[in-house]
Each structure stands twice: as C-alpha cells, then as structure tokens.
C-alpha cells in the first residue's frame, strides 16, 4: 500500500468512526424503554421528573373526561392493586375505554402521578378475547 492510499484508508476509517459515534449517541438519546406502572410506583426517585413511557390497562371507573378543558384523567395498572394516575390534556382517542391497554408517554411530576404528553390506545383484535385469560401476553402485544 502506498502512502497516498494509506492516507485515504486512515482518513476513511476516522470518518466512519466519527459517524458511528454520532449515530450511537443519537440513538441512545432517542431510545425509550417501556415501563410498567408498578416499576414507576416502586421506584419514584429513579423516575421523578424524567420522560417515561408506560404501558398499562385503564382501570374501570377511573376515567374522567372534561370536554371543555380537554382534560382526560384516568388510572392505569397491570393486573395489580397498584395504580398510577395519568393526567392528559388533549382529545380522547378513538378506542379509549375502560379495560383497554394504553401506552402513555410523559413525566412523573410527583410520585404516583404522570402528566402525559402522548397517549396511544393499543388495539389488537386478536387479543380481545384472550385479554381476560392471559393479561401477560396481552401486555407483550402492546409494545410494538
């Protein structure tokens, strides 16, 4: 390999390394892990004021919808007696109803309360019947 080629290879490798480093840092910044309500409830210090993404089922009887202020509040759980309260400002999504699975993205502003910036209802038709029998597999179906 002559000197000129060496320079090219070295320069090329350097560029690739920089590109990969940039790539890795951007991707780790933009990766959000899914959490369960009990994880959030059990470790409030770890998640306080952090941006989080949570999956859960809407608790029956917990939904209040104030159309005038477009305020939606409800509680979610994962088949356990621990509930996480969610406040969301925005419109009520199409399939939003009790017992439905949701993905919530937002901030834990105080222990047990999440102010959501995004709300997604997960609806998978195949799971509607299995939902009651096997909540665990329902869970797995929710995160895409």
């Amino acid at each position, binding site marked *: 390999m002559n000197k000129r080629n060496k320079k090219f290879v070295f320069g090329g490798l350097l560029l690739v390394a920089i590109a990969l480093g940039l790539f890795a840092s951007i991707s780790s910044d933009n990766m959000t892990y899914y959490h369960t309500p009990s994880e959030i409830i059990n470790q409030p210090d770890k998640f306080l004021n952090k941006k989080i993404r949570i*999956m859960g089922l809407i608790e029956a009887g917990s939904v209040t919808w104030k159309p005038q202020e*477009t305020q939606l509040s409800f509680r979610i759980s994962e088949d356990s007696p621990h509930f996480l309260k969610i406040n969301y400002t925005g*419109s009520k999504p199409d399939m939003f109803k009790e017992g439905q699975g949701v993905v919530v993205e937002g901030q834990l502003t105080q222990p047990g309360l999440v102010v959501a910036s995004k709300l997604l209802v997960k*609806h998978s038709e195949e799971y509607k019947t299995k939902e009651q029998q096997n909540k665990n597999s329902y869970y797995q179906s929710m995160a*895409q």
Partner: protein
Amino acid sequence: MIIDIGYYAMLAAFLLTGYAIFAGLSGIYKNSANLIDSAYRAHLATFIMVLLSYFSLSIGFLTSDFTVKFIANNSSTDLPIFYKLTAVWGGLEGSLLLWQLLLSGFTAALVLFYKKQHKEIMPFVVTVLSLTSLFLLFMLIGWSSPFAKMLPAPGEGRGLNPLLQNPGMVFHPPSLYLGYVGFNIPFAFAMGSLWAGRQSDEWILATRRWTLVSWFFLTLGMILGGHWAYVELGWGGYWAWDPVENASLMPWLTGTAYLHSVIVQEKRNRLKLWNVLLLITTFTLSILGTFITRSGVLNSVHAFSKSNIGPAFLVFIALILVLSFLLLYLRPGYFKDPEGKASIMSKESSFLLNNVLFLGMAFTVLYGTVFPLLAEGLFDKKLSIQAPFFNSIILPLGVLLIFMMGITQVLGWKTTTNKMLQKNLAIPSLTTLALVVGSMVALAWDWQLSFLAGMAFFAGWVVLSELIKSIRAQRLHNPKPTGFWVKVWQDKRKRGGLIIHLGVVVMVLGFCGNFFGYEDAFTLYPNQSKQIRDYQLTYKGSSERQVLNARHLAVDLELKKKGVYKAELRPAKAFYPTRPEPMTEVAIYSTLISDFYVSLASYNDDGSATLNVYINPMVNFVWASLAFYIIGTFYALAYRPTQLKKQEKA
C-alpha cells in the same frame, strides 16, 4: 367448489414451478434446448394456473363464500363490490397471492419477449426468478393459504377493515408489490448473467426500463400510502417513521441508489460489484419488509415465534444471501473496474457520494426499525425508537443529498473544469448561501428548515436551468422550425431525469411546510366559534347520514377565513355494522398553499364536540410531486440507449 379449483390450481402452479426449475437446470447442464423450452412452457402454464387461482379467490369474495377463512375474515355481504374485489389483498394471504400473480406474470412476459434476444442468459434468469416463485407458492399452498376452510361457516364475515376502505389503500399494496417484483427482475438478470458466466453488461441495458418502472411504482406506492395515512388515520400527518412505513422506505432507498450507480457502469464500466450488491440488498430488503409488516413480529416478538410464516421468511432471506454471495465468490475477476482514476469533481465521484448517503439513510432506517425487535427478542427489553432519532439523522443526510443533486447536474464524466463549475454554480450557490443565512438571521428560522429549504432552492435552480439549456440547445442544433411536440419530445433521457429531480424539489418544499404546521385540540358547543390563525371555525350542529355501508355521525362546521366563507366541513365518526368501534372520518379544506384539517375526536354527551385541528402548509406539494415523477418516468422510458438499438439490428 370454485374455491377448490383455486386451491388445486395453486397446487398445480407449485408443481409446475418445481418442474420448471428442474427442467431448466437439467437443460442448462445437459445443454438441451428441448428441456429449456419445456421449462419455459411450464413457466407460462404456472402463470395461467396462478391467474386461475386468483380469479377463483375473487369469485369467492364476490359471492361471499364464508366457508373460506380468509374471505370470512376480510369481507362481509354489505361490502361494496369494488371493495370486495380489492379485499383480495386486504390481508396477508391474499396479498401474497397478488405478489405471486405479478411475479408469474412478469416471468411469463420475460419468457415470451426475451427468450430469443437474450438466449444465452434467459434460462438462468428465469430460474433465479422461479426460486422466489417456489417460495411464495410453498407459503400459499401451506402456511398462509388464502383457500383454507373454516367450518362451520359464519353467517356473516368480519368485514374488510374500514381503514382499508379507501381508494388510496386499494392501490397502495399492488403498487408496492409491482415495485418489489420489478426489482426482482434486474436482480435475476444480474445473478443469471453471473451464473451463466457472462462478463458482458447486456443485462444492464436489458433491465433499464424494468428498473425505472419498478422505481416508479415503489415511489407511487409510498405516496399513495402516505396520502392514505393522511386522509384516513386522522392524526394530521402522512409519515410517522412507523415500522410499516420504514419497511417500504428501505428498498426504495437502496433501489434509488442503484438507479444512479448503474449509470456509472453503463457509461464508464465501473462500480460493477457495487451494483450487484445493491441489487441483492434491495431484493433482500423488499422481502425483509414483507416479513416485518406481515409476520406479526411488530405486535410482539413472542407472538411471532408462534406463527410459521415468520421463520419461513427468515430462512428464505438467509437463502437469498447465501446463494447470492456464493455466486459472487465463484465468479472472481468479473468485477474488475478499468484502470484510471476519476477526479473528485466528476459524475462518478458524485454518484458514489450519493450512494453513500442513500445507504447511510437505509442503514439508519434499518437500525431504527430492527433494533427494538432484536432488543426484545434477545434481551427481553421493550423499547421504542421514535421519530426524533430518524429525523436527526435522515434530515442532515437528506440536506446533503439534495445539495449533491444540484451539483451533480453540472458535473461531467471523469472531470469537470473549474470554468464550467464557476459558470454554472457560482450565482446559484451565492444566492442560496445568502438565503440560508438571511432566513436564519432575519426570519429566525430553525437551521434545519433554512438548510432544507435552501438546498431545495439551490437544486431547483440548477435543475431548472439545465432543463432550459436542453430546450435551447436543440434550437441551436436544429434551426429549422419543427412542430411543437417534436421539440418537446427531445433529449428524453436527460429531460426525464431533470423532471423527476424537479419533482423531488417540489416534494422537499412540501416537507418544509411541516415546520410551519399548527395543531390543537379543543371542544366546541353548538354555535360556538374559535379563531385559529386566520381561520374562524363555527360549530353549527350535528347530523347523521348513511355513506355506503357505514352510518356517519357528523358535526357540521363552518369555516371562514378572514371573515369570508370558505367551506362546510363535516368530520365524522363512522359506524360500520361489522365493527364494534367507530372510525374517524376527517374533513379537509384544501388549497395549494395550505390544508385546514379537522378530525372529530369525540362527540360528547352534552352535545359538544371535541375536535383535533391541524393546519398543514404546503402538504399538497408532496402529492403534486407525483405528477413530475409520472411525466419524468415517461420521458426516461421513451429513451432507447443507442447500444441497444445497435444490438437489436445486429
């Protein structure tokens, strides 16, 4: 009964394809023209059988034969006839059948039209194609058969997913499949020609039109898909970096890279290995895309392990890669580029950079789509990679790419003189620089917006001036007055490319509109109004109507702009008899410059309506770019390479 004919026709197609491969291979190695002819006839018969099978499934849909599981799951008696026919590809099994129909149709067309012209390589080419056929047919008679029975038959089908009852969604899948199958053809030609041990590039010219048409249909498919998402999903946008969207974007990116780099091989005999690698990648990504969207892996990696179709796709992908690379390994020395270097300021170099950018984008999309699946499958960690990741990488790469798009137009092969560069680029670059800086300083634009719009302006300028040059040049060469249409229909290859690139500029300007968008959600009571930018929206009342097979509960809104009446908007909830949940029907007041977009989020018990309102500036530029792609592709297709003309005469 009719369905049984379909199933047995499918079985026959599978056996015929198996026979065609066997006869083709024996013919090749025994050098027997009779066996090869027999293989060709088997390919034609396969097409007829698949066609028969497709018709029988369509008749099943028309007659609502719910003993067939696929029909019961995707149709209902109240479905309009048009949607009954298109529901054939409303689910996995039927869309595989459509794919197979296109693939055998293309194979038959190749056999009919190319077997004399490319006599030496055709047996190899169709054998490569029929390996994919064999795989698809194997799936179709086994794990994902659209003809599987369900007994006892339900009295009524579950109905076609209402989201799919939209013209955009009807033509989106066939268009994408045409693109996928289309890119299978240059792949088969490249592989077949290598396998046959031919060092010539005849396959490139032979597949030039196939490649263009496939690219066009991939593009069309994605635009239709984006438009469908825009008018049907009700969240105000057309692209969300959803895995399903990404799946179609990946082969488009590598296919577009190939479309450019193959020109370097055609003109300069370089990048031979690179081009073959791009074809392998594009073909693999189109299969991978189908795997990602259709195997259930997106719902859950765990759900996927239960289905059989997923692993089968993975095995097939592995097989493509192993066989392709084995062939490359067995043909060393076929990819030697000629001696001599090209300058940095040459078309060769700029096409290479263009390819690096396209591949960088494709890798980013692949990583962002597949990594969450891998993380879940391997480490049982659930995570999501969201739009900011894609935007923060794709946007800068895109800005560079559009800049390159402008520069490349004025670069020559091998090298370009500084004088030429100055003459063609000095004024546009300086103006663009001034605009970019000016928009950031004076208008306080986001730097991303300034660069994106600036580069679109730059590329648009250069492309337009090249187009004007092409029209003028012809006036100089041909001083005699000729008819208007004769003048328009000249210099077709160059103009085709320029027109398509102009379409890209228009599309990017449409993307820029996103930076000026507006969205809000609010509740209105009857006769209440709300001011949104220049618009005034008044809630008049609600109404119920029957639209085709759905009952619409609509709210009637009056839209005024600066006090002038503009439109009556009726966003609605649509109730389908076969679905428990209502669907959202959006209402859009559309002008060239901006869309006013309303969807009804909820109709509340107290008579109020909660609305999602979006203002989407320039969004119509994105759709309008399609016109440029159509005209440009038409021009490029009309061009016949001179070498090809000579070949045909000889």
